[in-house]
């Protein structure tokens, strides 16, 4: 059992995804026993990245520039908007090369259990963007969880009068609770076979 500063470090490492108690202990020991310069370099690069990255004022993606490189790219179709939950999702979709428009990151999905409602998914910002930029096509690329599916219904209902085409990814199965679009082939398939959200 660690105590004091080391316990604090262990606790902080444990809060990272995929890091369990044992790994956290091992990493903590590793960090204090390695060459000081090297471990401080890790600390510095964390500080630097965290300080310089923030949500893009246009689309919420995590970026070091503002607006982000997607929002400012002249070659991207600015009438098509792909709505995702996280910045990571943007990169997953980029890997498929199936979408050439712009993005909007909700940062969360509707979830009353976590106190998350329309305000927390940047809904008014999205509406403004859709109106200001005269968006013609929306692709809802959200995971088919209960929360994702409900968010899809919410967005489709509230955007249908503003946007002529609203599509969603196909799931292939009726209740894909466990499906996550994390592998590129699955995602390509889901994007290729996307369909209009029935309202």
């Amino acid at each position, binding site marked *: 059992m660690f105590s004091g500063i080391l316990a604090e470090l262990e606790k902080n490492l444990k809060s990272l995804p995929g890091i369990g108690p044992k790994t956290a202990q091992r990493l903590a020991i590793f960090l204090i026993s390695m060459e000081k310069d090297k471990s401080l370099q890790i600390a510095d690069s964390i500080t630097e990245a965290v300080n310089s990255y923030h949500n893009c004022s246009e689309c919420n993606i995590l970026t070091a520039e503002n607006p982000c490189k997607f929002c400012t790219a002249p070659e991207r179709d600015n009438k098509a908007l792909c709505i995702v939950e996280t910045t990571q999702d943007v990169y997953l979709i980029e890997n498929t090369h199936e979408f050439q428009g712009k993005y909007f990151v909700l940062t969360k999905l509707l979830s*009353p*259990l976590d*106190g998350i*409602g*329309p305000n927390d998914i940047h809904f008014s910002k999205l509406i403004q963007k859709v109106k200001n930029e005269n968006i013609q096509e929306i692709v809802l690329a959200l995971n088919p969880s*209960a929360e994702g599916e*409900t*968010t899809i219904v*919410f967005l489709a209902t509230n955007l249908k009068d503003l946007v002529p085409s609203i599509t969603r990814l196909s799931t292939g199965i009726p209740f894909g*609770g466990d499906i996550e679009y994390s592998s590129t082939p699955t995602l390509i398939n889901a994007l290729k076979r996307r369909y209009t959200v029935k309202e």
Partner: protein
Amino acid sequence: MRIIELNLENYRNNLNLSINFQPEGALLFGPNGIGKTNLLEAISYIAFGKSILGLRDNELINFSETFFRITASVEIKSQIFHIEAAADKTKKVIKIEKNLISKTSILYNYLKVIYFSPLDIEIIQGSPGKRRQFLDSSISQLKLEYLEILQRFYRILKQRNSLLKDKTNLSSKESWDKKYIEISSIIIKYRIIFLKEFAQFVKEKYHLISQRKENIEIKYRYSFPLLSDLDYFENLTNTIDKNAKYEIKSERSMYGPHLDDLEIKINDHDIRKFGSQGQKRSLSIALKLAQSQMMRENNECHPILIFDDVFADLDEDRTTQIINLLENKHQIFIATPNISQYNQINLPRIDVERFINSE
């Protein structure tokens, strides 16, 4: 479908044992408390991946050990499978043919077991939740996807209840309502289809057991009145719209599959209130026999039948008659403290007390 061999390590008070079963099954006898139920529970663990008696995995570990393991060879449609289930105090591991399975429900594709317990009477006289649970687990055994649908339903229900309670995000209520109504309608569809066939089987099985011509009727009871010219989806939509204020005030979902019930009538009277203990016992056996029949019709398999001392109230002739109808089709396990009731039954006998002590 049958179990050929069962090995237990550190399981409950049985500690360690290895046992080979005949294709027809076994009659396990011995005084109460000797471990007959534990043995039957272990067999059903291989089918359900959990204790049929509702115990947690760590409660199945022998008190002086840190893990338990059950291994079994089973024959399913002329193919032999090796299934292994083990758990320590923190996690469970299930393997089929040495391959780890990712979720317990994959097991349901293999061994099918129907477990008759004296506690089954609770399905009849217990709370509506007991009947819903029986109904839902019966459907899940036939239609694997139903389990996922149920899980999705309960997730949405939890979210919707939280929304109704918290009230800060009511602007998203319409969307949650929509998903809630959609998934509720799917649940109802499965339940109604199941019940149509099932109710008929229950009637037949009950007559077989009771040998009286009492009329048994099972009806689905909705948690709100339905208009017959509309489908369930439309009915639930209207009811939820009309009672929006009431639901918000109540802070939870007041209409839906989680509040429905089964109405069981014997000669037009509610069996819960008016049935005798004997009628309830017979009917609880009939429910399980009907479950088995549903599996035969839908999956073309004969599940293993486990009777944990459920015939105590029936006389020898009746018991013999029921078992004879099932023999040669199903592998049957019967546990009883009273072997004389089974004089006319040909199953191989296992003296559980002697068996456990000899190991």
